[in-house]
């Protein structure tokens, strides 16, 4: 009897609990569905950036309407080029060039998109993305070449050589650098670094790919530093201890044991740095001179993909070809950084997992 009663009681408790489980169930599923939002945002970005970009490929040239807003757009173009008087001679040569080679303009055909001229606001609009890509490429390369050695060395220094007290200063200071808004870095490059470097190196154009890359490296250093530092300190203690036990010195341990073991992490740091540099807008918008030209001379002004969106989007007409092409550039940027992030994540996870087993 007693047992039965007990059973009943526990059954009762169970059923009471079951009622409770309803709220549990609700809580869990509400939380789960809210956490789905992050994924949904990614999907939405995909859909809505591509949605505006895709009509580009199906659009016929609407000459009558494009003539109408030509006026306002020219105004916009002027506004965005005032920041660098340097690119006006370049523009002129490009214009005369344009008159000679008046081919199939207006439409954003594949051949037009892969052309080497970016002139969205002329009577024969040209949407060649190549100069923009080359601009982004130049600036990114410069910034990585400057930032990578500095950041990696700094990470090595603060992991191995710096005394504890000093380490506690270095980390927050570099985190402080990460907290610099990019518009401030761009501003500083425009106002101070540009003039300083021109005096130092004596090149013609005050704003150019080199200045943009230099300024970008300030934004990239904290990323590379942080990820590299994480990778270095994630190496198990027994690696370093084994190395010391074999009689290796501190720098030998650092450079011959820990750094090679952390290579996947450092590689990921570089990839993330490239992603940041490629997508960064405000710095390059303010510091590269914004002349869309095909050049591999880093002391010439360039215009990057991201800066093009930033400078021209405010002046285009919704639904126009130019508008669609800008979204197309955005889509390309998104795909590029998305790929880099995916590689960084999967490559590192697989490599490190294999190396140290588990996580």
């Amino acid at each position, binding site marked *: 009897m007693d047992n039965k009663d007990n059973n009943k009681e526990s059954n009762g408790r169970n059923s009471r609990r079951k009622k409770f*489980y309803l709220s*549990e169930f609700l*809580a869990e599923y509400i939380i789960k569905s*809210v*956490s789905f939002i*992050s*994924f949904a*945002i*990614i999907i939405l*970005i995909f859909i*809505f*950036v591509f949605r505006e970009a895709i009509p580009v490929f199906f659009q016929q040239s609407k000459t009558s309407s494009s003539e109408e807003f030509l006026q306002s757009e020219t105004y916009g173009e002027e506004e965005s080029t*005032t920041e660098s008087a340097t690119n006006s001679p370049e523009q002129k040569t490009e214009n005369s060039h344009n008159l000679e080679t008046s081919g199939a303009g207006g439409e954003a055909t594949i051949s037009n998109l892969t052309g080497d001229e970016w002139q969205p606001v002329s009577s024969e609009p040209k949407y060649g993305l190549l100069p923009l890509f080359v601009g982004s490429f130049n600036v990114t390369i410069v910034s990585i070449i400057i930032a990578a*050695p*500095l950041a990696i*060395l*700094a990470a*090595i*220094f603060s992991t191995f*050589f*710096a005394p504890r007290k000093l380490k506690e200063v*270095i980390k927050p*200071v570099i*985190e*402080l*650098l990460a*907290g*610099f*808004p*990019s*518009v*401030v870095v761009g*501003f*500083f490059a425009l*106002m*101070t670094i540009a003039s300083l470097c021109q005096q130092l190196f004596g090149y013609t154009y005050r704003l150019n790919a080199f200045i943009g890359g230099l300024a970008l490296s*300030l934004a990239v250093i904290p990323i590379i530093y942080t990820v590299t530092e994480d990778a270095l300190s994630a190496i198990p203690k027994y690696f370093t201890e084994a190395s010391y036990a074999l009689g290796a*010195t501190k*720098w*030998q341990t*650092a*450079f011959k044991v820990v750094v090679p073991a952390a290579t996947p992490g450092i590689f990921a740091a570089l990839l993330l740095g490239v*992603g940041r540099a490629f*997508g*960064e*807008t*405000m710095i390059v*918008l*303010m510091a590269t001179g914004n002349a869309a030209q095909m050049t591999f001379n880093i002391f010439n002004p360039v215009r990057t993909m991201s800066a093009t*969106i*930033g400078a021209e*989007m405010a002046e285009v007409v919704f639904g126009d070809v130019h508008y669609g092409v800008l*979204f197309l550039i955005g889509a390309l*940027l*998104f795909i590029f*950084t*998305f790929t*880099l*992030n*995916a590689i960084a994540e999967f490559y590192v996870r697989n490599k490190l997992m294999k190396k140290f087993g588990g996580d």
Partner: protein
Amino acid sequence: MKNKIIGNAAVVVSGLATLLIIAVLVYMLTEIIINGRNYLTWEFLTQSPTEGMTAGGIFPAIVGTVLLVLIMSILGVPIGTITALYLSEYAKKNSVFTKLTRFAVNTLAGVPSIVFGLFGLGFFVQFIGGGMDKVFSAPDQVVWAQPSILWASATMAFLTIPVVIVSVEEALRSVPQDYRAAGLALGATKWQTIRKVVLPNSISGILTGTILAIGRGAGEVAPILFTGAAYFLPHLPKKLSDQFMNLGYHIYIMATQSTDVEATKGIQYATVAILLLVTFTLNFAAVTIRFRIRKKRIT
């Protein structure tokens, strides 16, 4: 002997690299403060720009930035916190959904801010705003389908969600497992334990996340370039569908499109100093709180 030389060289070279980074930072800060200090007055903070932005203060830009981060936090912090709650408390480590969410968060953190701007324009302004206009507004009247502070804040909220998630999750994980076990042992259900034990113990983490997100949101310009920031407005924003002025955007405009860059140089540096002050104070606060959390976890 040779080893010793290489060893010393390694220390010196890597030390110099570190020093260089810090030196550049210090140089930037001093340059900004020296050039802007004469303009940092009370009037500068409380007045509107006058004479075509060549004189006066930055009051509307400060108000606009504050409103932006406020609305952004209201929209973004709950989503970030709940996602972190899921990842830390409910997620099964190897389930597809968990992996997908983590991947999405990491990806989101790496999406260029200008792409968020495009997304805000395509999704919020045109799709949502356009839809709202069809339903709520009189025909041919555009209220929501244009750049506004609401859409800029929403875009910024999406941008800062990963920041919130990362720091809240860290705080949640720093709550000892014993606390959860004790809660469950006392007969509390999982949700009760989370609500009454885990969350109260990670309030500071949620605060850190919010502060970091605000610091980020206050400084970003690219996402709001075409989702709501305005060059100059005579009035402060009164409705959610109004445009607004913003500190970062103000700096960008003044530095690149002002009629007389030299004359406004001091004002520009002062504006930069204010923006830096805001973001640094926020970041510093976040770092301090986080440091205290980490300390608590160790003891």
